[in-house]
């Protein structure tokens, strides 16, 4: 992939956000280029899911800016944001399928709400997407009747039903066995290649990240440690990166004073 002269489709600048008084994101800068697969990695609590929610416009930040397809979303009004979201597909971690509708109706929902297509065209589109996701024949089932892997694929089908230019996938491999998650990785690459999508994947799975990513961003405690190509990340000298690659638990200097304080101090500080 040529990394130069490519249009930036997502531009996050100096994003800072708090939850209560706790700082979750601390000056995050991130560029995602057109047609690339960007994987955002980090352990639990590193802020990667929060970053995703901000990019989707679901949370509002303390400061900083987020530009998507040329639209600044931190200041955009609701109408503009909703307009923009038609170009964005999102597959949530738990699938977020609507329990009161069949899988087919779930996948069809965005079309029904946003387009005036013929019933038959919509039906064919839904079935085509389900075929691509290897979900032929589950159209009439309820989400509760699907397995974990099927739920994720159905969610992916719903996310791409409008042929979005941007696709976000939260934790594709969470809670799945390695075979099923490898299938999902294949699907992600396939979608990028065939439909020219820009894909942002949030995950903590190393193998999957290395397989699908063009570039990887590693977050730790709300800060970006490194954003680079897979190759460069592997060869990085940064200890935090190496710790992560070698699955070493984080080594922190033990401040004995503070530690003693934590153990014996008042509960309410």
């Amino acid at each position, binding site marked *: 992939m040529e990394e130069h002269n490519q249009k930036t489709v997502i531009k996050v600048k100096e994003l800072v956000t708090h939850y209560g008084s706790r700082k979750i994101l601390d000056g995050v800068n991130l560029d995602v280029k057109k047609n690339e697969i960007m994987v955002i990695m980090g352990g639990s609590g590193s802020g990667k899911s929060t970053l995703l*929610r901000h990019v*989707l*416009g*679901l949370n509002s930040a303390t400061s900083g800016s987020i530009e998507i397809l040329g639209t600044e979303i931190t200041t955009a009004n609701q109408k503009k944001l*909703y*307009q923009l*979201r*038609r170009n*964005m*597909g*999102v597959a*949530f*971690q*738990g699938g*977020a*399928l*609507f*329990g009161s509708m069949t899988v087919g109706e779930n996948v069809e*929902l*965005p079309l029904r*709400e*946003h387009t005036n297509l013929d019933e038959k065209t919509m039906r064919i589109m839904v079935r085509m997407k389900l075929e691509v996701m290897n979900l032929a024949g589950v159209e009439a089932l309820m989400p509760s009747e699907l397995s974990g892997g099927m739920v994720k694929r159905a969610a992916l089908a*719903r996310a791409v039903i409008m042929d979005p230019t941007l696709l976000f996938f939260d934790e594709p491999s969470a809670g799945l066995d390695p075979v099923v998650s490898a299938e999902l990785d294949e699907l992600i690459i396939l979608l990028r290649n065939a439909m020219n999508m820009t894909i942002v994947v949030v995950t903590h799975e190393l193998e999957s990240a290395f397989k699908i990513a063009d570039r990887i961003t590693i977050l730790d405690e709300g800060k970006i440690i490194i954003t680079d190509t897979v190759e460069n990340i592997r060869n990085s000298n940064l200890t935090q990166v190496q710790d992560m690659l070698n699955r070493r638990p984080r080594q922190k200097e033990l401040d004995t004073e503070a530690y003693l304080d934590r153990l014996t101090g008042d509960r309410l500080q």
Partner: protein
Amino acid sequence: MRNFVEKTGRETIYYVEHAGMMTIFLCSCLIRIFTRPFQLRAIIKQLHFIGAKSVFIIIVAGSFTGMVLGLQGYYVLQRFGSLDMIGSAVALSLIRELGPVLAALMVVGRAGSAICAEIGIMRTTEQIDALECMGIHPYKYLMVPKFIAAIISLPLLTCLFDVMGILGGYFAAVVLFGVNEGSYFQGMYSSVVWADIEMGLIKSFVFGLIIVWVATAKGFFLHLDRSGAFGAEGVSRITTKAVVLSSVAILGSDYLISAILL
């Protein structure tokens, strides 16, 4: 002492903020009732859920309420020798007070709790986020059909409750205690005026609004609730709160409406 002031301040701010949020929520939902598209299918589905499925419980509750009124009315009025008043006593108390209030409380227990839990679960499982990300406004898509359905079905359910109550009262007073049938109904004809029925309908309309408002808003803002609970425990906690709050709000607003209209 400082702790007390601090806590009081925090509580006050929380409640004012919460009330403001709920009010803005209500206004946004109400405005969206009048915007296109009008989701007829979703409204019918909600009418079925809130209205049709409550019919049985309303019939049962209405009949028993009427029977109790007939029974109590019979013993009390007998003491004063004014048994011919029993028809109007049953009808007036049902139409003005008991019908709207009890029907609304029944619907809170049956539909309000279910709505709150449904929305709450949708919040915790990211379904509401998914809707927003699909460019579908959750107020319009989820809340508006419920508001419309409740506003339509509550007055109808109240009417059903009133009718069943009057029949129940008839059963107790006339069939069981042998009160004269003519005087039972004649009392009603002569004492119930349109203003009574109007009051009942206004109440049931407002109660319908309160039920859906509290249920949907509590579920929708689950993640902002002070208890900080999420997941299954959060849903159960919030549903309890919604039922208690809407029941109290129904009784409170019942007094207010009565005071204003009288």
